[in-house]
């Protein structure tokens, strides 16, 4: 079971267990992490699961495409490493994945 690290905007750090095949959004909501909402349940329709993937990990995920790119255009504080975490699937070897959270999902 990979352990993921989330750092809130305030600096508070959380270690969360994820499953291979699960989305990063679901790992976060399953752990009741504040700061990731996932209102649409992962349908890439709400953009309340915005997160920043640590630079060292960005390349481990297939790049954002289509709907996700367009949704990201409108999130608050978009950065180069912005992703919708429901589109990030946890794979083997992702133990230690580091994700930072934006100040707000709105």
């Amino acid at each position: 079971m990979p352990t993921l690290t989330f750092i809130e905007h305030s600096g508070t750090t959380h270690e969360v267990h994820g499953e291979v095949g699960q989305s990063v959004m679901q790992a976060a909501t399953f752990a009741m992490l504040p700061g990731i909402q996932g209102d649409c349940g992962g349908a890439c329709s709400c953009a309340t699961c915005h997160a920043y993937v640590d630079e060292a990990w960005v390349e481990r995920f297939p790049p954002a495409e289509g709907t996700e790119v367009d949704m990201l255009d409108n999130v608050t504080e978009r950065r180069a490493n912005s992703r919708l975490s429901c589109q990030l699937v946890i794979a083997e070897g992702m133990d230690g994945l580091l994700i930072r959270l934006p100040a707000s999902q709105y």
Partner: protein
Amino acid sequence: MALNSVVIVGAGQGGFQVAASLRQEGYQGNITLIGDEPGLPYQRPPLSKAYLLGKISATALLFRPEDFYTQQNIELVHDQAVAVDRNNRQVRLASGRSVDYDHLVLAMGAHNRPLAVPGAEAQGVFGIKTKADADALAPLVKEARNVVVVGAGFVGLEFAAVAAANGATVHVLELGDRPMARAVSREMSELFRCAHEGWGVHFDFRQGIGHILTEGGKVCGVETVEGKRLLADLVVYGIGVIPNLQLALEAGLDIDNGITVDSTLLTSDPHISSLGDVAAFPCIHNDQKLLRLESVQNAVDQGRAIAARLVGKPAPYTALPWFWTDQGTLKLQIAGLSNGCDSTVMLGAPESNQLSVLCFRQDQLVAVESCNRPGDHMAARKILARPPRLTPAEAAAPGFELKVWEAANRD
């Protein structure tokens, strides 16, 4: 009054959200979440799309894993609430158990309007509401050769797209003259009709189903009211839903198409709240008229609002309604309410399946429907959240972009 126990009837999208948000808000009293479906609370949208296609697992349907409920001290009760005793503030369950409440939340959702035609009880006829429905349907969709869908609403069309992707011949019977007629503009209906036809779906508009033809208890076809016969080894209907009102009716709560609530989502009894598919609330985006919505956004945002009120942060519920549906390669997102729309402006190119329809009422933007233009949808949600000043003339100007306008017109 101290609030020591909150009881929630209905462990679906809305009921779950109230429980989770109460804990997130720091509420420490008892929470009893009563649901009459087996298993852990789960989301419905994938049932007619990703889950049916086998793209996501049963675990991905769950809002939370099992240990969440123990860790958060939320008592999940698998039972059916059969009566509410408002004088003694008690809910009676089918098992005979009674649960006391300081505050009760009614989140019973809705059930599918049944297909009231001869033969509807045959094997192979389905509505889609629960995980059990989807689990029974999934293996049949893979094998079905001829599928008839009754009703060209969201769920029916999502299913039609799944069945067509599985290689079945799909016929959609619809009483109206276009798909999703009650929910979207003509322009958007037209785009969806063309796209579905491109995937091999056949539409029969202005056609009602007369009866279902059976062979040995199994469906083998349908006959329309006009006598047209269609082969079918699978029939799926999506002809609207009926709110689950019985409990509230018998308890004597005010009802008007749904359980009537005020702007803070309280029912006519100050110890009872209601939300989601079962509740009719005065909507500021609908001239304060009562509205019952069937959407994830509505259940989630109302759940959060009720939890906030219960921990002492009351505020009128004003969230902007938004919705999505995924059909084949099309994602339709709707922000706002298009009721009473009297003019539209189109952005994008319908022939490439990318279209936003801006809906105006008396020159005021009231809703934006976007197909495969999620950027427009997100911008529309921001624009519509405050009284928008965008005029139809501005929107119709060459080169107009919603995103750009939104960025330039923030307060």
